[in-house]
């Protein structure tokens, strides 16, 4: 196996934006953010900063030649705030200087007077004030109101889940280089090159063709560089355009954490009703999403919350409502899972509440209510296949859930200080952009006369291994070795109008487009080969870099074939386009088929609690996961493990703290802790459910990026189970993350 990317990584030969050789004369930008959460800007004085040594210019909203707007879904986000600020850290001005240090130093010379206005940080408060983004949305099925009367057990409660900082290790970065004839080349650390291109064109009032956005690779994104990379690229471009010099803008960690959006905090109310057999009859929930100050992708995130409100369960009567609440915090944005984790934790909390009420093991209730093939989701789509049940049953038996629970009970009784807890967490996650129009991709494949192949797509390599997968797919489609294939940087001049690399779909969409393009080339080459060999084209195949006639290899090599084709003036380039078929969704009726398929699985999570000190750790996570026919088991396994630990971080460790004025207190790595090696479970076992029946995706594979994050929700409930070995804790109010402080609170019965 050739692994070009990993080899470059271990040798540090990978170039991130800040590592690129800068053109001579490059200037450096730093951004001045609002010190106030909400107010009217009276005076913004940047004269002293402009006069500071090394400073080339200071830019404010007045200097924007085009539209002062970066909002992609709703036009409610200025690039640089002009008259009103809506969150601490909102960009107000940009300093450009000859060194990064001088740019940062000059920020201290900017003063701003802001007439403060009341600020709201609590989404329920915002909802009460009627400060919403869009209208509340409700997805419903059956008749919930009528169903309650048939329920034997009804539980209700509230779940508050916190936000989550992406903490991609590469901070937001862009390098804008002016080119002759009013065009600009931008290197951006973005998941969405076309969004950056569109935004820059809008801000600079130029056509999109004047802007080339190129992405070599991104040092982690997790959703944080989908919509939110555009601001920094646009700022760099603005300065580069005005000064006609290359300008680099790399946020330092502190600025990145203060100014950029994170996973949405939610606060939700639920009600779940069960019949006498423990079957779920009715589920109702309201999700108050803290959107932050501007729309960003919040409404789309909320939509996915509604789609995943019932996770892996079949419930006949459902009514779930999502409310997108505007507050005075930085715009919350996409983060791996895209609203699904926030909804899944609610239904799981409801099930745990029911299990504790009924005094039955939670996993038995879960198992009883799993989706089967043909079951209908509240949004009208039918479940294909039985993977929820198959994966759950496989996990329960393979990882000995029943006997381990008994063993844990025994051991807990024998020790006062060490308690253990176990939880099973099923996941059922829909694959596709829920905004149907985004499910499209283009690919451009060139075959060069020496037989080497260049592939351009819309997929951005952010560490998820999409380049490796695309390379493998192209090589397989053309019947040549992977070493002949190069996956190009993602550039808006090679593939236009790209959808973001997001929603776990990059390999599905771009892979399909690559295979279509390769198919076109293959057809042309086979025709040439058939002509050379004097056989019908139908008998020709290319395998192992050689032309085969029927079952026999011929003497015609790939190189010779390509050369001949070139001589015969056959087009050796192909562009192809793929649009996921059969997707539709009607937002009026809230019914449709928003997903191509679902990815399902189940995890068994075991926690260890130090009941004396009030600390806990996750000892093991064992997973049965449906990855279809994995395109690269090493890559897919890494995606599952990484997502799980990120999920555990969200549910048990990572805590955003904001002071009463809306200033983020946890804006450094010393105050915002993410999982480290010691924190991560020693055992993460991943068993792939080899299920290809229901995948509509390329080469019977399945998307893998997001679904496993939600296994991390099991960590919360495993620790909770361990705490319950010490004392009963009420289930009506659940708060994430379950930090050590919260554990101690629960242990002390507070």
């Amino acid at each position, binding site marked *: 196996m050739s692994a070009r990317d990993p*080899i470059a990584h271990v040798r540090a030969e990978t170039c991130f934006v800040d590592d690129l050789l800068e053109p001579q004369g490059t200037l450096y930008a730093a951004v001045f953010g609002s010190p106030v959460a909400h107010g009217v800007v009276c005076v913004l004085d940047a004269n002293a900063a402009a006069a500071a040594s090394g400073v080339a210019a200071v830019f404010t909203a007045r200097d924007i030649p085009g539209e002062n707007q970066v909002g992609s879904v709703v036009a409610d986000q200025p690039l640089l705030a002009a008259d009103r600020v809506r969150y601490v850290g909102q960009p107000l001005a940009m300093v450009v200087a000859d060194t990064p240090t001088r740019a940062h130093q000059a920020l201290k010379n900017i003063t701003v007077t802001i007439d403060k206005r009341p600020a709201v940080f609590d989404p329920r408060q915002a909802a009460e004030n009627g400060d919403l983004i869009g209208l509340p949305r409700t997805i419903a099925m059956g008749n919930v109101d009528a169903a309650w009367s048939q329920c034997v057990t009804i539980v209700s409660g509230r779940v508050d889940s916190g936000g989550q900082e992406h903490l991609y290790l590469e901070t937001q970065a862009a390098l804008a280089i002016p080119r002759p004839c009013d065009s600009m080349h931008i290197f951006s650390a973005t998941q969405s090159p076309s969004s950056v291109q569109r935004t820059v064109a809008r801000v600079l009032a130029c056509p999109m063709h004047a802007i080339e956005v190129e992405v070599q690779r991104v040092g982690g994104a*997790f959703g944080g560089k989908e919509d939110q990379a555009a601001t920094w690229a646009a700022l760099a471009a603005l300065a580069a355009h005005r000064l006609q010099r290359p300008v680099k803008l790399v946020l330092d960690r502190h600025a990145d954490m203060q100014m950029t959006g994170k996973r949405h905090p939610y606060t939700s109310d639920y009600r779940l009703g069960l019949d006498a057999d423990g079957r779920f009859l009715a589920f109702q929930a309201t999700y108050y999403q803290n959107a932050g100050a501007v729309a960003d992708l919040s409404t789309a995130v909320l939509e996915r919350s509604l789609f995943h409100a019932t996770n892996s369960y079949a419930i006949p009567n459902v009514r779930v409502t999502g409310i997108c609440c505007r507050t005075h915090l930085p715009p919350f944005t996409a983060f791996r899972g895209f609203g699904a984790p926030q909804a899944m934790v609610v239904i799981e909390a409801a099930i745990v509440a029911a299990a504790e009420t009924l005094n039955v093991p939670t996993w038995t209730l879960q198992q009883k209510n799993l989706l089967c093939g043909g079951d209908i989701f509240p949004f009208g789509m039918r479940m294909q296949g039985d993977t929820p049940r198959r994966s759950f049953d496989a996990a329960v038996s393979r990882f000995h859930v029943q006997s381990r629970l008994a063993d844990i009970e025994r051991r807990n009784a024998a020790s006062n200080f060490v308690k253990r807890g176990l939880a099973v967490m099923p996941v059922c996650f829909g694959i596709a952009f829920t905004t149907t129009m985004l499910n499209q991709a283009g690919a451009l494949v060139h075959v060069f006369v020496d037989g080497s192949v260049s592939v351009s797509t819309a997929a951005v390599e952010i560490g998820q291994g999409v380049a490796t997968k695309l390379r493998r797919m192209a090589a397989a489609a053309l019947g040549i070795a992977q070493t002949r294939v190069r996956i190009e940087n993602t550039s808006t001049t090679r593939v236009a109008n790209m959808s973001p690399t997001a929603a776990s779909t990059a390999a599905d969409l771009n892979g399909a487009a690559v295979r279509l393009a390769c198919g076109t080339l293959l057809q042309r080459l086979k025709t040439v080969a058939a002509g050379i060999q004097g056989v019908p084209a139908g008998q020709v195949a290319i395998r192992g870099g050689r032309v085969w006639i029927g079952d026999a290899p011929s003497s015609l090599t790939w190189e010779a074939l390509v050369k001949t084709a070139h001589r015969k003036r056959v087009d050796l380039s192909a562009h192809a386009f793929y649009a996921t078929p059969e997707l539709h969704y009607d937002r009026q009726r809230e019914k449709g088929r928003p997903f191509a398929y679902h990815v399902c699985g189940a995890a068994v999570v075991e926690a260890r609690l130090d009941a004396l000190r009030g600390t806990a750790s996750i000892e093991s996570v064992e997973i049965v996961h449906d990855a279809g026919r994995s395109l690269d088991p090493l890559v897919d396994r890494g995606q599952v493990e990484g997502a799980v630990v990120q999920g555990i971080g969200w549910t048990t460790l990572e805590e955003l703290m904001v002071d009463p004025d809306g200033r983020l207190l946890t804006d450094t790595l010393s105050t915002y802790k993410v999982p480290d090696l010691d924190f991560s479970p020693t055992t993460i076992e991943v068993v792939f459910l080899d299920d290809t029946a229901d995948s509509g995706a390329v080469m019977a594979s399945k998307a893998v990026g997001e679904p496993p994050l939600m296994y991390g929700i099991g960590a919360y409930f495993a620790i909770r189970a361990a705490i319950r070995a010490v004392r009963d804790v009420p289930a009506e109010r659940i708060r994430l993350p379950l930090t050590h402080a919260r554990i101690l609170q629960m242990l002390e019965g507070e």
Partner: protein
Amino acid sequence: MNVKDQMKNAKWWYSVYFKIDFILHLAFSHFREWCEFRNGRFLILLAIALGPGACESPIAINGDSPLYFNPQTRYWLPDGAEPADHWSPMIRFILNRDVVSTRVNRGSVLLDFLRRERHLTGTKQGCREGDCGACSVLVGSRVPGGVRYRLVAACLTPVGELHGNHVLTIEGLNMDALSPVQQAIVDAGATQCGFCTPGIVVALTGFLLASPSLTLAEALAALDGNICRCTGYASIRRAVQRLVDGLGPLPTAPDRRLEKLVRTASLPAYLIDIGRRLDAIALEPAPAAADGVPVPVSGGTDLFVQQPENMRHQPLVFLGRDARLQGIRIDDDHIHIGATTPVEDLKRDHRLVRIFPAWQTTMDAIASTPIRNRATLAGNIVNASPIGDLTIMMLALNAQLTIRGSCGMRRIALDAFYRGDKQVDLAAGEWITEISFLHPSPQSCFNFEKVSRRKRLDIASVNTAMHVETHGGRVSHARISAGGVAPVPLFLTGSSAWLIGQPVSCATLARLIDLIDSEVSPIDDVRGTAHYKRRLLRRLVIAHFVVCFPDLELEGRLP
């Protein structure tokens, strides 16, 4: 001739100076006594040799460019020129394969030097506070029998302290083929976005070079300063397992181990020669601090996080370069710890491991390998953080500080050292030279407890230490300290005094907890609410008793 022209001419003169300096250095590097004259003093001689007049007089070699000796920078500057950043004294070290000489500010950090001055971009900027490991590099210093490499965070390492050392970055580790460390990461799929990967390669290479033990646990512990946001660490564990499985035995002596690692293609061959090349540089005295009251830097792992700008512009004196301030000495009664002994050396000291049974696990919970390699005990004490782990330990051990200043030496008990919030009993120009404490008796029990959000590389919500001894069922000696519950690292004077003479019992513990609660005054902050900290401290005091008095049967009788 105006100043501007002089400056222009001066450029030429500096190049002449550098050349002369370098030629003379080459010529005389064998003679230590000659080299004593470098850095200005030698030029004074040169000035005398070149013409009449003392060092106040300008030298004018070609007649039209007079230079004046600036006593502050000890360099010759054009008349009227302000000593600027680039007039800093020459710092010379080996960077990977090359000797570099630089006059960047002594307080500028290595990370910026690597990335901005040398375009060595394999060392990544992740957080600039030593919390992510993306900028990890190895710094080698000459020791008898080889070069000792330590993993450090380049973002917190001042360039001025590198004089005479070897800096080894990922670029310097690359060979034509992948090293076993690199190969293991590739094979295990232990790299995804790749941003943290160079730091991990460097950290594991540091483990190979310097770890006394080659176990899986030690290798994993070597990554306690590295954050990876992509992999969830499972594949990194597998990579480390592969690496360790593939290791043969390695000698412990640095030079012999290095040879073996080079022989097995784990490291590039040029490293063999580094020790000898460092000796040549070591003959040159390290550049001294500029005039003015210098800021003593003892590791600086917090200073360079809290005030990087100040550090770049203030005169600094690097206490870590003074061998007299380093080392651990244990005599019949006392344990003496040199003020600037790196914390990692404390962790690894076999004698301390014997004296304190839980020593290594305790030390694992303090900072991370790259931070422990720079941080020092005195630094922790003077930093006066109310939550300093080592300080809290030292308070319970009744440590005494030896302080050197212009008026000579003095000694003070650590528990008398803190005067208030960040106020310590240390005058300008004074610094701690040694921390000492009585050898704990074998019958006594020392226990340290710490709870933080994350177990490793995190600041405690509350930490506490207890040193206690009993005699006939009663407490005969007791010292308890607590951090994070007061403006200063707190020695619990009243509670400790009360405990002496009490019977070892649950009732004593219950009373003690209440007493301690009345002695502390925590506040709400990002490490927890005041309420939480009080609750937590109560439990950690119980934990002290659980650890020190296992026969007390506290289980089942707890709050």
